[in-house]
């Protein structure tokens, strides 16, 4: 007793192609399937029909690698709260539903093909300063610097960002503030992050701007769709650190 669905999927051959929505009928979908498994079934059919399967990014399929991501019915990763696309299951959809599926849309995330986008801008933001400069072998004993448990826990919460880019896709400004702030906050809360704290905040914010991401206007869409629930106040932390350092 499967479900029957109508999918409207964004198809785009490559960056130069204009792209369009294409309608597919998918029948006998098990409610136990994940959203990506449902697309797998459709793709198997497309391959056998000699068509190009729908390209989409995915890898771990357990919600941690951050590779998957699509806008489902207008919401990044779909309507299920704190859930990546790969962990979204079909039981949350109605039989005979019409589902739209689109890629992340933001200028700094150009479409590569269909639902696949180029998120390398995120890597370049990390390159600008999202690290502690400590070559292998040079570290002191791990217990030489105690860290307050609360700080370690808060740093961890910020560090759980999976870099999927849903925050950017959801933001009306296409801002990467939540992503950038999560890393700045993670390292700012730890003693190991202090020596480079100022330069890191400035360099990462400037890179974020250089990539063409928009500014933050505290809309909060980012944290609403974030599969890891990165809190909005990390952005306040980023702004504080940036202003302090830029003085």
């Amino acid at each position: 007793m499967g479900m029957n669905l109508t999918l409207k999927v964004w198809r785009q051959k490559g960056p130069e192609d204009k792209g369009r929505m294409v309608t597919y009928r998918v029948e006998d979908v098990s409610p136990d399937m994940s959203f990506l498994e449902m697309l797998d079934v459709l793709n198997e059919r497309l391959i056998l029909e000699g068509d190009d399967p729908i390209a989409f990014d995915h890898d771990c399929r357990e919600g941690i690698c951050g590779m998957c991501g699509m806008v489902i019915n207008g919401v990044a990763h779909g309507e299920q709260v704190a859930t990546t696309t790969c962990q979204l299951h079909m039981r949350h959809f109605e039989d005979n539903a019409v589902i739209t599926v689109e890629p992340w849309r933001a200028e700094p995330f150009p479409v590569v093909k269909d639902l696949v986008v180029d998120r390398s801008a995120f890597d370049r933001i990390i390159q600008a300063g999202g690290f502690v400069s400590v070559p292998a072998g040079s570290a002191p004993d791990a217990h030489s610097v105690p860290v307050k448990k609360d700080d370690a826990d808060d740093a961890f919460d910020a560090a759980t960002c999976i870099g999927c880019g849903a925050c950017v896709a959801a933001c009306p400004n296409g801002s990467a503030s939540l992503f950038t702030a999560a890393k700045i906050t993670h390292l700012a809360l730890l003693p190991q992050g202090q020596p480079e704290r100022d330069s890191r905040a400035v360099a990462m914010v400037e890179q974020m701007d250089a990539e063409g991401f928009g500014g933050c206007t505290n809309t909060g869409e980012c944290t609403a769709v974030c599969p890891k629930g990165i809190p909005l106040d990390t952005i306040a932390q980023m702004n504080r650190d940036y202003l302090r350092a830029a003085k």
Partner: protein
Amino acid sequence: MSTGYAGYTEGEPIRDTKAPDGPIEERWEKRKFSAKLVNPANKRKLNVIVVGTGLAGGSAAATLGELGYNVKSFCYQDTPRRAHSIAAQGGINAAKNYRGDGDSVYRLFYDTVKGGDFRARESNVYRLAQVSVNIIDQAVAQGVPFAREYGGLLDTRSFGGAQVSRTFYARGQTGQQLLLGAYQALERQIAAGTVKMHTRHEMLDLIVSDGRARGVIVRDMVTGEIERHLADAVVLASGGYGNVFFLSTNAKGCNTTAIWRAHRRGAMFANPCYTQIHPTCIPVSGDHQSKLTLMSESLRNDGRVWVPLKAGDDRPVSQIPEDERDYYLERIYPAFGNLVPRDIASRAAKNVCDEGRGVGPGGLGVYLDFADAIRRLGRDAVEKKYGNLFEMYERITGEDPYTQPMRIYPAVHYTMGGLWVDYDLQSTIPGLFVIGEANFSDHGANRLGASALMQGLSDGYFVLPTTIGDYLANGPYGEVDEEAVTEAEAEVRQKIEKLLTNNGTRTADSYHRELGKIMWEYCGMERTEESLRKALERIPELREEFWQNVKVSGEADELNQALERAGRVGDFFDLAELMCIDALHRTESCGGHFRAESQDADGEALRDDENFSYVAAWEYGEQGPILHKEDLDYEYVKMSQRSYK
């Protein structure tokens, strides 16, 4: 050479693993001192390729960049941060003895050799235990947010196979945090210009010139362009091959192509049959299933495992009275009960399901029941302990584990086998180094929990950067034979062409699924001579059909995920065959390799140390594989039989 009974021949044994001699605690120091150094000005002239960006590859590329080498790093994902190390949950072992509970380098060494069921190399394992303490220091200095206690010091927990508390962790996301540490170090080197990163690139062949590994052929997965990249040394850190079973806890993209192609070019493949099957995974829900999700083993501390007493009993749980339930682990293993080690719990689950007593779709599942724990401790206490796991379970299955038992089933999780390497982590092809899960290394026939992260980072941050220097000190290695490169390129193109023009009637995934079923059925948790022979009949037939009949749509010069998959499946077929040959030749049971013919009176795994205390290193041969044995000597840890009754 003698002819084996599974279509293989036996070649010369491997006599030298290049481990220094002398007292075991001095060997790594000795090697570090004897390894030649490369002066900083020369490092810039030396090129190193690293394939894979998980814990091993990411940390290695970053460290080689820091040292001043010219590094090229490759991954198939869109960014190096997504490698599957990211999904490791539990933790990372290190012999810090911060608890003062009697831990030491020697004890970690001892536990690992024993846990590996005496099929690992003592010298390597000892070094791993030594280096483990540096890993924690390095990770903390990078800002990895490990769990801490109120005094500000690092928290640890205990894990299977150890009586001390030596596992460092970052909630249930230790792999993620360690990988991000390595990723950030790597990005720092990319910014510094020492590492050139190639994302969305897949290695399709190894270039061997004058007997040395000199580069790779890769496909740009966006443009489809076939590229050649040359270097003075190549490092493979491309992970394990659990996806040969189709369903596993690996990421969808994990594959064997990089190491298999290297094997075809002359690198020996060691112990391919050693696979680890994890007992607590969420069962398959239907034919659409694309991967399996692990549920932390810690659940077995409070959950009771059972199946209905009668076969074919499909009543709902609430209607099965207590005396018609079989708590089989408690019944068979009264001393350890639900806490028997991974391999034993997995096999017991398979046995009850084979008897027709499994639960859920297809009868492939057993209950893990928390009703008693909730009665005893209260729902709140259970929620505090396992809340996030219960939530994950409900998300995937749609069932509430507070009101009905979880269903679990074993799944392929890790592969101990891999390319053979010596003490320097160098394969049998000079200049080809293999690190992390991709090598066969340190876990013997069974890996202990929280040891994979340790090995990946040990190899990448500390061991390889030293040992590869000794090889590179004799470089640069000059011109690469153009013929070797064009030949490798041509082979890659031919294969792609073949796949795209085949125009058959089945998809690559459908063949992969069928291959996986064969492997799971005949070369899975329990292997017999009969089952393995069946597999060795079926695999070549199916492979033949695959190459005749697979259908791949799309073009070569575009992003083509159907093509990517088909290429990987092609290599899985060949690997599967070697796994079965290895499993058939090893008539003993050891660690994750259980041969039904080799068990004691209680049905437990029975090793045959007299005949099988060796590493089986397989050389590729056109006429079938050639077995080279590396004898294992135990000077320090006394061999013994495991028992959990």
